[in-house]
């Protein structure tokens, strides 16, 4: 190091920049062997089928593979399957990758896929299982060791997408493995780029490179994957040099990190929309629980059932101001669930234009010239700056005459109450998969237990026209037709202000300058996406 620095000193000023780049490139070679990274959310289990939870999925991606992997924009790419196609209206065929071995040397075959599909719904005590992703599968047929056919009851265009959530296990190793065996590291054996060396629950996981990996060879020999849940402490650990890479960078630290020469950021527009849910459950002539007249007395009607009121509330929000002032630029104002460039994005559905005059006019037209009182509920520990956003909206609504109180509470109490429709207006988020039907069937479709629709429709919006479009799309195998149906459903729902979209979060990671990272829009933090800055990205 010092030799290189001295040489730099003798180079002319103009070349010094190049010289510094050389230092940056030379340093990692010396210490590229171990990567220390810190994540903000604790990993709770190494069993890939136990708990459907992002931090667990990220680590599962390091140890295991899926039949169909996803790239950093969540597009499907070949994983353990090299090819997949429907061979009939209700049959999908997967051709498997030859020559793949598990960490313990066992070969990967169609048997393992069949075993995995059988295990997924049968993991004991799972608080959130992956069963729904394999539920459409009625029969499994092993054609030969490297070909497998999956039979479904009805046409299932989304089966490949569903299977991007299922990590493949080894029949021989995992036949009798319990979740505890995975957590202890004994059974954490997959085909992925890293093998587990040690797991100290809630503290760190140590990995070692799998040199026999079928895909791109990771850039580091070892990885120390630490969990630092406190935001400020995580940033401080990066600045102190104790860790080289962190995720979930708090927006309040962005200014400092952008100005720090030792640190660089990697960002990408994510798939998580922050939005407001409104009370559609109470009839127009009923009281909504947290809406009153200006005198504090019940109104005798639910103004939120009037589309003019909903539109007024939406255009009263200055989304650009929230993004700039509250999110410090780490978000994009949104008018729908998914950002441009993603399947079923509706081009003409931009973020609603900020117009407080028009909002006041709409309120007056709906019969509320002096507005009313409303309480906006929000979690305070779930989404980036959630309670701050809620307060900013409170300011903006108060200015058009809807006097707003903001009540922020922990997610533990918030989510139960939201699920019981106790709120009139609530702030919440939705992390989508890139297939546009996902938020529609969960948030917009009328809640229906038997058919599994609207499970997260906490405002109880209901529109038969939109429902019909969604249901049609879900069985449409032709991608183009399906996209049109979904776009039509979205257009109708957002015209009706079913929910008030706010912004889509930007996912941000920070690292020491000698590292580079390929950011993922699904928020997963995986060691294989990090490399020394001198090594070009594998593409």
């Amino acid at each position, binding site marked *: 190091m010092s030799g290189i620095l001295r040489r730099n000193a003798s180079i002319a000023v103009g070349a010094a920049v190049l010289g510094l780049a050389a230092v940056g490139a030379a340093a990692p070679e010396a210490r590229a062997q171990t990567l220390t990274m810190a994540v903000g959310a604790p990993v709770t289990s190494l069993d890939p089928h136990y708990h459907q939870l992002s931090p667990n999925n990220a680590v599962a991606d390091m140890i295991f593979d899926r039949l169909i992997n996803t790239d950093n924009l969540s597009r499907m790419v070949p994983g353990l399957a090299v090819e997949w196609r429907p061979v009939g209206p209700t049959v999908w065929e997967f051709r498997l990758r030859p020559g793949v071995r598990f960490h313990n040397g066992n070969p990967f075959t169609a048997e393992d896929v069949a075993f995995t599909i059988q295990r997924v719904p049968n993991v004991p005590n*799972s608080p959130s299982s992956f069963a729904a992703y394999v539920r459409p599968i009625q029969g499994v047929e092993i054609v030969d060791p490297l070909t497998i056919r999956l039979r479904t009851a009805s046409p299932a265009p989304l089966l490949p997408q569903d299977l991007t959530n299922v990590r493949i296990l080894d029949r021989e190793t995992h036949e009798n493995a319990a979740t505890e065996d995975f957590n202890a590291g004994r059974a954490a054996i997959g085909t992925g780029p890293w093998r587990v060396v040690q797991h100290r629950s809630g503290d760190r996981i140590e990995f070692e490179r799998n040199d026999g990996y079928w895909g791109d060879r990771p850039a580091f020999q070892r990885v120390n994957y630490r969990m630092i849940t406190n935001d400020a402490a995580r940033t401080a650990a990066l600045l102190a040099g104790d860790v080289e890479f962190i995720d979930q960078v708090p927006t309040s630290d962005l200014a400092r990190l952008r100005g720090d020469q030792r640190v660089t950021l990697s960002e990408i527009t994510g798939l998580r929309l922050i939005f407001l849910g409104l009370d559609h459950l109470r009839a127009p002539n009923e009281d909504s629980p947290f809406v009153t007249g200006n005198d504090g007395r019940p109104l005798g009607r639910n103004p939120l059932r009037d589309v003019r009121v909903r539109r007024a509330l939406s255009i009263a929000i200055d989304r650009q101001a929230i993004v700039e002032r509250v999110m410090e630029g780490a978000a994009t104002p949104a008018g729908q669930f998914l950002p441009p460039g993603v399947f079923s994005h509706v081009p003409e559905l931009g973020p609603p234009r900020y117009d407080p005059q028009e909002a006041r006019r709409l309120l007056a037209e709906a019969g509320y010239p002096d507005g009313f009182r409303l309480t906006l509920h929000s979690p305070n520990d779930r989404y980036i700056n959630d309670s701050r956003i809620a307060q900013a909206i409170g300011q903006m609504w108060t200015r058009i005459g809807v006097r707003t109180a903001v009540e922020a509470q922990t997610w533990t109490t918030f989510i139960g109450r939201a699920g019981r429709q106790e709120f009139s207006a609530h702030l919440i988020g939705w992390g989508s998969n890139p297939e546009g039907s996902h938020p529609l069937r969960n948030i917009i479709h009328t809640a229906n237990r038997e058919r599994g629709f609207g499970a997260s429709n906490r405002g109880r919006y209901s529109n038969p026209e939109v429902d019909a479009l969604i249901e049609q799309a879900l069985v449409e195998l032709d991608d183009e037709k399906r996209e049109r149906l979904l776009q039509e459903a979205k257009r109708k729902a957002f015209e009706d202000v079913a929910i008030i979209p706010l912004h889509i979060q930007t996912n941000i990671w920070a690292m020491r300058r000698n590292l580079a990272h390929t950011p993922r829009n699904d928020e997963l933090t995986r060691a294989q996406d990090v490399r020394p800055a001198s090594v070009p990205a594998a593409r």
Partner: protein
Amino acid sequence: MSVYMLRRLLQAVAVVFAMSLIVFVGVYAIGDPVEILISPDADQIERERAIAALGLDLPLWEQYFVFLSKALQGDLGRSFVFNEPALRLILQRMPATLELAFGATIMALVIGLPLGLYAGLRPDSPVSRTIMAGSILGFSLPTFWVGLMLIMVFAVQLGWLPSTGRGPTREFLGMQWSFLTWDGLRHLLLPAINLSLFKISLVIRLTRAGVRETILMDFVKFARAKGLSPNRVIFVHVFKNILIPVVTVVGLELGSTIAFSVVTESVFAWPGMGKLIIDSINVLDRPVIVAYLMIIVMMFIIINLVVDLTYSVLDPRVRLEAKGT
């Protein structure tokens, strides 16, 4: 004596059960663990399956009954989140918290006693006033804020100590301890200081108050009059007298340090029980919360017993037998 011990133990069992009942009902009131744990896109069928899998479909009293009957066989249930026995999870994390709490307590005594003694003996000197003013800082600044400042100064600016986490561990008595390695001690220092700040102030103030009171007493005057050296008077006669309140409070504080290390552990990413409990509360992992609190109650009761026993050693006027009457 043994009757007394037996009685205390029986009371302990009653307290533990009361605690488990309160927590059971309390957690139930806070929210629904399934709502928190389940993936947002899970449909209603999947939600119901999860509720049944976690045993939450039974009426509350039945859930409690199942828990009780298992607890009597030594099984405190499995964590919803980790799918491992709650007791094992807690015992795994216990050494980290214990070494943090003991580190903080030792630091409080080593720093607090001499400073308090000085301030008590020379109450009007500027140094004493500085000590007393400084001690106010110790309990008026919120722990989380001081923790971040310590990290900023000693790890980020000066680079002397590691910012967060626990150092390498070594096995001792079947558990993993980090204070046995040099790097482990370096990791321990900042969080232990952070946790001990309140206690240092407390010890300083108690010691000072005790000293000021004791040196005016007749027995000290007699001791002086008898011509004993000032050092002997202070370190034998005065010290012995002020140790009672200090021992009480420090003993108590050890328990509450363990119970309240939550904030320090989360700021310093210290993988102890405090961090486990706050994570568990955040996802309403009821088996872990209940088991944790039952263990903490046990620990408190044992500590209180030890404190009471120490009383009788330090001050014969407090007779244990007397309490039974």
